Structure formats: C-alpha cells, structure tokens
C-alpha cells in the first residue's frame, strides 16, 4: 500500500524526502492527512479487536452462574480496559481519523491546516494507548477501577497497584492529541474551504466534525485537568479526591462526568454525520432539512454540557439538582429526535438502494432509537434509582454506542472504502456481516434490559443461580460470539476486497460531495482541479447544469 501514498514535501521547493521504496518509514514520517487518517483507522481496528476479546472473556465468565473462568481481579481489569479501549482508543480516534481523512477532501482542501500537528495528534493517541496497555506488564496488572475510575477506589490506599497511574497518564497523552486534532479540524474547516463552499453548503459530516471539535476542545481539558489531579493525588500524596484527608470523592464524579457526558456526544455526532452522508446518496434525494440537522447539532452540543449529573442521581444531590438535570437530559432528546425525522423524511419517497452502507445506516436509525428511548426513560431520576448500576444501563449505552456509533462506523467504512483503497467491498460478505451483526448485537444486549430490571448488578464478576439468570446470560454470551463471527467476516471482507475487489472508479455510489470528484484513492495533492461549488451537491450541479440545487447561486 505504501507505494500508493508517496511522501511529498509541503513546500514548492524540494525538501529532503524519503523514497517511496522506504516502505514503513514513509508512513511513520508522513504528514499527509490521508496517510494519517488510514493509520488512525488501522490502529483503531487493532484496538477494536483487543477490546472485543476483553468483552468475549467477560461474556464467557458470565455465561453461567458461579463461574470461575476469570478471577475477580482479572474480571475487573477486563471491564475497565474494555470500556477504556472502546471509548478512548476505538470510537473516538476512529471518528477523528475519519474526519482527518475526509474533511480536507470534502471541503476541497489540499491538507489539514497544520499537517505536522496532525501527525503529532496521531502519535500521541497511539503511544497513549500503548502506555495504557503497557500496564498489563506490571506486577498487579492493568487498571481495575472502571473506566470512570471513581475515587476513593482509584486512590491510595485502595489501589496500590500501578495500573490506574498508567491508565491516567496514557489517557492524558491521548487526550492532548485529541485536543490538538480538535483545534486542527476547527481551523481547517474555518479557513481552508474552497471558494463557494460556504458554511451553509459544507457536507453535514463536516458540520458534525466542527461541532464535535468544539466539544473536544472544551471537554478534553476538563478530564485532562482531572487526570492531572488524580496523578498528583496518587504520585505526590495530595488530597483532591481522598475524603480521608479532607478531599472530595464527589468532586471527581462531577469532573469526570463534566467531561463524560459531552464525550458521548463526541462519540455520536460524527456518527450522525456519516449517516447524514449515506442516507441521501442511497435514497437518491438531497437531505431533508439541512439547516435543521446542522442547527440541532449545535443545540445538542450546547445542552451536552448541562446534563452531566444525570450520571450521579444515586449520589443524592438533592431534588432541585436532580430535577434540573433530568429535565435538561430529556430536553436533549428533542434535537436528537429532529435528526431522526430528518433522516426518515429523506428516505421517504426516495429510490432506496439497500447496499451494505445503507443497510447499516437504516439499522442505525432503529437501534439508536431504542437506545434513545431507554435513555429518555432513565433520565427520570426515580426510574434511574431503580435500575442504576444494573444491566439495564449496560444495555442502554451499548444500544447508543454500539447500535449508534459502531453501526454508523460500519456504514461509513463500506461507503468510503472504495474512495480510500480504490476497490469496492464485497456485497455478499457485507450482507453476511450485516445480518450477523444485527442478530448478534440484539441477542447480546436486548436481553440485558430484562436482566437489569430483574436486578442483576453490573461490574460484578459473577452472580447467584437465580431463576432464568443463567439461561438469559448464556443467550447473551451466544449473541456475543455471533457478533465476534460477524467481525471476522468483516475482516475477511476487508482483506479479500483489498486484493480482489472490483475497481471502484472515482464515484461508484454516484454521490454528490467533493471527495468523490477526485480519483480513488486520491492523489497526494487531493485535487487536480476542485470543481466549482455552487450548492450543497457540487457533483450534482456539475452533472445537471440545467437544474442546479441553487439556480440563483453566484458563480465564484
């Protein structure tokens, strides 16, 4: 693959460069946004695989009551690292990587605004991730205090092992990388748009990345600060979060969720962006209500900073605070619901073509609505009290993060794979992958709603043999293995398609945004000539000069 993306100097005068033949080095030293984007995607795939194995180990342990497959200590490490990996090392960097690859192409730019900073972001993410995983080599293993790392459990003397220290350090490094790419994205979108590409015309994916980047540069310093305080506590014996020394454990919860809830929108907004690109193309209609999709995203972004304490209803913050956070949390369902209607209205009356990307996008709407509905339910404090820390919550957030973000990620991979590699993915294997995912995912997680209502607590390594618990958990475990098979089919599809897939051509889906105007894969300089932009669908305008989207648009 390396031959496809030779390293190119950024200046007109030639700088000392590496030869194409130097293979790996041309990737490691690259500052090209497409190469960096691809490295993001590959690394997140590896982390996805590791995080998936951790999940499978947990499901094997839970397959029957009173099981001893994993020790409690190892189980704690597994659920901590599974959550940490999937959030910080898979979903977030994947979406950042997709943004890094696609945003310059979509707005007709040559590269990101700061190509070197872009490379720095990637390497900070990768080495941060490696640092987190390095802790498995310490004597007492990896962090075992949950991805939320509640104090005082995460503090001395309750956690004397080194795991949480590595964990906080690694995530701090990765977080600095995220802030840098957030800044990079904002500046790129604000300053490098091709003439005619106004903010009212950029693809919705770009809008979502823009809002997400603002969330990143606000939310990541919050957790960075909290990680720093946690490290000061652990390494210098300070007292921020240790009640025994006058500190406050609740303060950590406020700080963590002050970041944690914006974070879930960092995870889901770019997914909304992917869906907003895929659905119009495969319905052969422009997006319904462009301004509403973009505007409701801004509303979500603003509201997301006022809902953090709905993770803390069980703390006992008082009725006024609980009522406030419950109301804001329910309010956030309104802009989210607007988007669902936008997508459904886009499909309505369209000539829908169910290729694999569209299958995943359609399933995304359904699964995400389920996750959204349980979300509105547990936004109500009294209901939350009854199901909090049970498998109901586990089911809820897997429907939003897997059913939402991961389904959108798969839709995006099938959609943009031809652009990135020049080859189509196999539709046959893609359909197998899709249906196995649907069956496996719903089998694993839908039943956990019932387990949660029946009172099964999360984060415990085993359970007593209560009526139906064993069989329901076994069903969930079988579902998890079907899901694992679906991932294997997906990997197979990637490998086979890379070698033998049909040659894609510039625009295999007959799409309308700028990234499809260049060759697949794009040349290093992206465009020989950026097509004129006179509307939201430049390639439509180009193909149908007699009926452009904006007939009165000025020609730039």
């Amino acid at each position, binding site marked *: 693959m390396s031959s496809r993306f030779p390293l190119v100097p950024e200046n007109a005068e030639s700088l000392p460069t590496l030869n194409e033949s130097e293979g790996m080095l041309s990737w490691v030293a690259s500052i090209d946004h497409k190469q960096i984007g691809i490295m993001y995607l590959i690394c997140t795939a590896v982390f996805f695989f590791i995080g998936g194995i951790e999940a499978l180990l947990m499901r094997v342990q839970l397959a029957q009551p009173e099981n001893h497959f994993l020790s409690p200590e190892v189980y704690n490490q597994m659920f901590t690292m599974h959550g940490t990996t999937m959030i910080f090392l898979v979903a977030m960097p994947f979406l950042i990587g997709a943004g890094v690859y696609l945003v310059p192409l979509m707005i007709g730019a040559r590269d990101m605004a700061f190509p070197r900073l872009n490379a720095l972001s990637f390497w900070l993410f990768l080495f941060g991730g490696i640092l987190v995983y390095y802790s498995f080599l310490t004597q007492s293993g990896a962090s075992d205090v949950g991805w939320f790392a509640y104090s005082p459990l995460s503090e001395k003397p309750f956690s004397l092992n080194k795991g949480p220290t590595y964990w906080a350090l690694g995530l701090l490094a990765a977080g600095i990388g995220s802030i840098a790419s957030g*800044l990079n994205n904002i500046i790129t979108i604000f*300053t490098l748009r091709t003439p005619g590409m106004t903010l009212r015309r950029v693809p919705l994916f770009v809008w979502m990345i823009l809002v997400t980047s603002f969330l990143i540069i606000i939310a990541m310093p919050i957790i960075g600060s909290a990680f720093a305080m946690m490290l000061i506590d652990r390494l210098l*014996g*300070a007292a921020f979060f240790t009640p025994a020394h006058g500190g406050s454990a609740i*303060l950590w919860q406020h700080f963590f969720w*002050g970041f944690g809830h914006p974070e879930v929108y960092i995870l889901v907004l770019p997914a909304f962006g992917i869906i907003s690109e895929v659905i119009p193309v495969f319905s052969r209609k422009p997006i319904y209500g462009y301004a509403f999709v973009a505007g409701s995203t801004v509303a979500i972004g603003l509201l997301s900073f006022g809902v953090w304490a709905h993770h803390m209803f069980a703390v006992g913050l008082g009725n006024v605070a609980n009522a406030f956070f419950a109301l804001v949390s329910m309010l956030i369902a309104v802009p989210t619901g607007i988007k669902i209607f936008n997508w459904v209205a886009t499909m309505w009356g369209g000539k829908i073509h169910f290729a694999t990307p569209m299958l995943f996008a359609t399933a995304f709407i359904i699964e995400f609505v389920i996750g959204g509905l349980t979300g509105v339910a547990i936004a109500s404090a009294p209901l939350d009290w009854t199901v909090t820390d049970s498998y109901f919550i586990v089911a809820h957030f897997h429907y939003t993060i897997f059913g939402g973000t991961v389904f959108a990620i798969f839709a995006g991979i099938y959609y943009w794979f031809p652009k990135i590699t020049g080859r189509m993915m196999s539709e046959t294997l893609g359909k197998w992958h899709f249906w196995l995912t649907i069956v496996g995912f719903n089998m694993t997680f839908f039943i956990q709603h019932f387990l949660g209502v029946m009172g099964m607590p999360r984060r415990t390594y085993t359970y007593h043999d209560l009526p139906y618990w064993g069989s329901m958990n076994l069903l969930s475990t079988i579902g998890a293995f079907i899901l694992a098979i679906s991932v294997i089919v997906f990997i197979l599809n990637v490998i086979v398609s890379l070698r033998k897939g049909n040659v894609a051509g510039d625009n295999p889906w007959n799409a309308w945004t700028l990234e499809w105007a260049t060759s697949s894969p794009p040349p290093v300089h992206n465009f020989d000539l950026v097509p004129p932009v006179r509307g939201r669908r430049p390639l439509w305008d180009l193909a149908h000069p007699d009926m452009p989207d904006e007939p009165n648009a000025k020609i730039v």
Partner: protein
Amino acid sequence: MMVGFFVASESFFFLMLILAYVNFHGSQVDGPTAVNSLNPIVTGIFSLFLLASSFTIWLAGKSLKNKNHRMLKFWLLVTILFGAIFIFGQGIEWAGLIEKNITISRNVFGTTFFSLTGFHGFHVCVGLIMLSILLGLALFGDFKGPKSDAVECVSIYWHFVDGVWIVVFSVIYLWAFL
C-alpha cells in the same frame, strides 16, 4: 485564530483547577490555610511584574509594527526579565511554605494551592522559553516586520497566562485577605 482556540481550551483546564480550589475554600478548619500562611503583599508586588510584562510585550509588538528592531529586542528582553522575576517570587513563596512544612500532601489547601500555582508557573516557564526563542530569532534578524505570526501568537499566549494569574491571585489571595 489557532492560538485563540488553544487558549480557550486551556482556560477550561485552569477552570477545573480553580473550581477545585474554590470547592475546598473554607473546608479546612485547622492547619495551614491561605489566610494564615500566605503573604499577599510580597506576592502582590511580584504579580505587578507579571502584569507589567503584558504591557511590555504589547510594546514589543508595536515596535515590530514600526519596524523598530532595536526596541523589539529591548522590550522582549524586558518581558523575559519581568516574567523571570515573577517566577523568582513564586519560588520564594514556595520555598517559604515548604520550610514551614506546608506541602502538596499536607492538606487540601496545600494540594489545591500548589497544583494551581504550579500549573500556572509551568505555563509561565513555557512562555519564557517561547519568548527566549523569539528573542534569539530577533537577534538573528529574523523578524522584518511589520507583522509576524510568531510574535502575535506568543503575545496572545502571554496575555492569557497573565489573565489566568489575575483570576488565580484574586481567588487565592484577595478572597482570603479582603
């Protein structure tokens, strides 16, 4: 613009540290607190140097605009000196506290005070390094004027570090003594 957003992002980092300090303000019943262990007059005087350095870096930018390269070097040097004097003052404050066995692990006042002023001091030091690089480049005649992105960016950062100190000083010192 980049530095503007970066500084906005940084301010949330400091906001959390300040919130942590505010959260524990007054929760310390006995032992060292801001009131009984800090010296607002001395630190106040050193703070004036930091405030003045914001003014001198503005003068440096103005000299560059007028293509007055000698004054640019002069004002950069003065800015670095004022920043260094401030850091020296912080050092005296810290050394005095540590001598009295008031450390980061003593109690929540120590924890929040040292973390907040420590991270601020770290940012001042980073600023001093960047200013020194600017001065070095200026001595080699790198800035032709009338505009330089590097000078502008460092200057925004420096104003930010200064602004954070105004908030930190108000929260730690003025709140305790006024």
